[in-house]
């Protein structure tokens, strides 16, 4: 994926070559994904009708997600990321909070499977049906796995050692971005993905808030640290301020996105409960004339 990492310390030729190769590779992967998804969706729509199974907005979301992935590694964002830690953090947040959710909203599982060649499809089916995988896909283990993956990716890549290594080596850098996008995709799939793959709302709620907390903790640690934690060469002109800003960038947008998502999940849940088990108020309170005609569904007390 990553095309980043022009050279800082030693802009040697081998770096450029590796860099170019990686850029090509990442573009190729994105193209491949786009092609596969497109083909799958086309086939689905051809069989079931346009906009069925995978809604149009899902397809749009997926495309947007791919564009964001590409954009995050190129052009202005990329230059920003080169110049400071905070810029780099902004790039990571773009991948985690924009690209990941968009890709997840694309509901890519089915289209991609359809587009895959038959043997691959068989293999996938077998894997999916295997007992351990089935167990893993139950809501609670899945949530633990997704939360764990995101937390691990976030913490690991922002520890000083791994972070510096990633800045210095294009391959690691690519791995870093890949793992961030993948973790985010995994995390948001049960929240934004197709209805049949969603975890129950309470689980989603806990999953989101539970993932937010360790991320916030890391953000807070960076914001409040009295001295730079990273070597000066990966930090901007004012190292401490750069680190604080980066911490805040990790902290605030994540909290905001998760908060909004969690509340949306919650509201959706209440509404669904309400549809499934409507409030009845069959007659009015005792001793009063009948309430406005209300059969089964509520006119009172509940939001429709």
């Amino acid at each position: 994926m990553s095309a980043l990492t022009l050279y800082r310390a030693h802009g040697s030729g081998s770096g450029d070559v590796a860099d170019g190769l990686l850029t090509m590779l990442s573009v190729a992967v994105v193209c491949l994904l786009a092609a596969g998804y497109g083909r799958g969706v086309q086939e689905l729509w051809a069989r079931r009708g346009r906009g069925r199974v995978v809604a149009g907005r899902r397809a749009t979301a997926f495309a947007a997600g791919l564009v964001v992935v590409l954009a995050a590694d190129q052009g202005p964002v990329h230059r920003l990321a080169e110049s400071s830690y905070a810029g780099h953090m902004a790039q990571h947040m773009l991948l985690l909070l924009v690209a990941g959710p968009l890709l997840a909203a694309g509901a890519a599982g089915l289209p991609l499977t359809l587009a895959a060649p038959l043997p691959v499809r068989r293999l996938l089916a077998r894997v999916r049906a295997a007992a351990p995988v089935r167990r893993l896909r139950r809501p609670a283990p899945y949530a633990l796995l997704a939360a764990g993956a995101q937390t691990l990716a976030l913490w690991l890549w922002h520890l000083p050692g791994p972070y510096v290594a990633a800045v210095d080596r294009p391959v690691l850098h690519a791995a870093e971005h890949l793992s961030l996008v993948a973790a985010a995709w995994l995390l948001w799939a049960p929240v934004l993905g197709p209805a049949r793959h969603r975890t129950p709302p309470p689980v989603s709620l806990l999953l989101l808030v539970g993932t937010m907390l360790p991320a916030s903790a890391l953000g807070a640690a960076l914001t409040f640290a009295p001295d730079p934690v990273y070597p000066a060469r990966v930090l901007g002109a004012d190292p401490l301020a750069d680190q604080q800003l980066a911490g805040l960038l990790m902290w605030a947008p994540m909290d905001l996105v998760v908060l909004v998502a969690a509340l949306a999940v919650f509201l959706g849940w209440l509404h669904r409960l309400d549809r499934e088990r409507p409030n009845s108020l069959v007659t009015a309170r005792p001793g009063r004339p009948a309430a406005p005609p209300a059969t089964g569904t509520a006119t009172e007390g509940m939001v429709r």
Partner: protein
Amino acid sequence: MSTTTSTAPGVGRDDLARLAEHWAEPRSLRAWLTTVDHKKIGRRYLVTAAFFFVLAGLSALVMRTQLARPESGVVSPQEYNQLFTMHGTAMIFLFATPMLFGFGNFLVPLMIGSRDMAFPRLNAFGYWVFLFAGLFMWASLPFGAAPNNGWFAYAPLNQVQHNPGLHMDVYALGLLFLGISTTAGAINFIVTALKLRAPGMSLNRVPLFVWAIVATAFMVVFALPALNADNAMLFFDRRFGTHFFDPSGGGNVLLWQHLFWIFGHPDVYIIVLPALGIVSAVLPAFTRRGVVAYSLIVLSIVAIAIISFGVWVHHMFATGLPQLSYSFFSAASTVITIPSGIQIFAWLATMLLGRLVLRVPLLFVIGFVVTFVLGGVTGAMFAVTAFDQQVTDSYFVVAHFHYVLIGGAVFPMLAGIYYWLPKITGRMYHEGLGRWAFWLAFTGMHVTFFPMHLTGLFGMPRRVYTYRSEPGWDGWSLVSTVGSYLLALGLLLVLVGVVHAVRRGRPAPADPWEGDSLEWSTASPPEPYNFPVIPRVHSLHPTWDARTVESTTTGATADRVLSEGRRTLFTSELDARTERAVEMPEPSFKPLVLAGALLVFFTAMLLAAYPIAVLAVLVVAATIAAWLWPSRRPDEELGLAS
């Protein structure tokens, strides 16, 4: 108790007799000490918390008397410092939270159609611990050894080298002790609300008050540990020479503040959420309709519970942390006003559409709206960091938090007291007395605390035992003092009103207000088993809903009568489908013994009598072991292989 025992629609006479027999508690000292009835425990919480309120309020009156004039000598600085610390600590920890837990204890099982809390004996234990912890802390005052470092007890003034004596040991141990009760209560509320709801009461039919209590309980579970960790470290620093908050040993004084406010900020919402829940519970009866926008209110409750964990640094805006972090916490603190705004406007809309019945509870609700909004907007002002840095730690802050605490918590509690008094005591209160109490308390409140905005802006710092007259604070301070006496008079009338109702009040009908929630379908006061038939709920307003009412009369079924033994019903967590009937525990001495052993433990720790503390721990362990010891059953009933 009341006379309605003999019959109930939908239940046969013998069923009722069996219920009465299984749930009966004789009137004896033994029964008094061993009871596990949530209604009695709830009542005790209310009375005990009110007692601590009076103590803390009287401390405030002494403080106000001292502050009436510049350089007066009513109390010494050392005494004043203990008084304001005990006032704040007791109001927050021994009055506000326990009082609301009292309401919760009495009401949650009644509102959700259950016969008791999920863990009745734990409930009794929680009460005893609360009582003992409160007495433990107050007992230090006559000895001149009460906490003296403000209710948030900043380091390093809480360290032994700056603050010798037992003062802060009482604080640390007292709050740790009390924490046991609060945690136990919170867990009990959560499990009760998850498992004991009447069949059919899916989450979208849960009364707002119960939502509020559950959200609060979750906040307690996740916020209180920060305070406990803080106090444990404090006690170790003071007693065993560790260095957590001691810069000379590598410690850090701001760690105390971070941990305290990570608890402290959620705590103010722990106090206000159930109070807002009371408002939502009272309004339907006095507007003759359900509260508008139920799901938005529930959403606000959840949003407040989540966001409140992310704003703690707004209490540390002057400590010189990175400005960037201030901009974040400023934003978060600003955002948290929005869910409160939603609730305020939902209530206003309810009043605008309903038909107002202007009885005392509604008066207090209106007083609440006026006062809470004023206190809320000053809170929103503090969220703006630059302004907060000017007024923090001044009387402006004192004004803010009394507006939100008295307006946002005490007024709703008073509304609740008048509203549920018939249910709790079986007696009606005196309306005229209630109105007088309201107007005195309302006027007194504003006369006391409004001027504090001004003295704060005029540069008066808080927590000063006296002041000189040159800065020009004396006039307004005197006004505050006068107001505080008015307020006290109003509260005295509340007390008189309650006593009058208990002694002389008219007997209350089961449903004097035509309220909408299930507690009004029980007798006043409720029978020990609450509901002869556990209802099947079809609506958010069960007592206004014919199908729900029918489910306890003509539609009563045996699986909801459960008269064989002390039983109630378990339902599934989310959609409240019937799961099974469960046996509830009998009265027991063990909760009291356990709490007593803990009291011995904490007292021994305070006085450094460690061998006794060890003994107490052994008693604690033995009591718990006996408490949970499984009763012996035949093998086939246990289900043993081979």
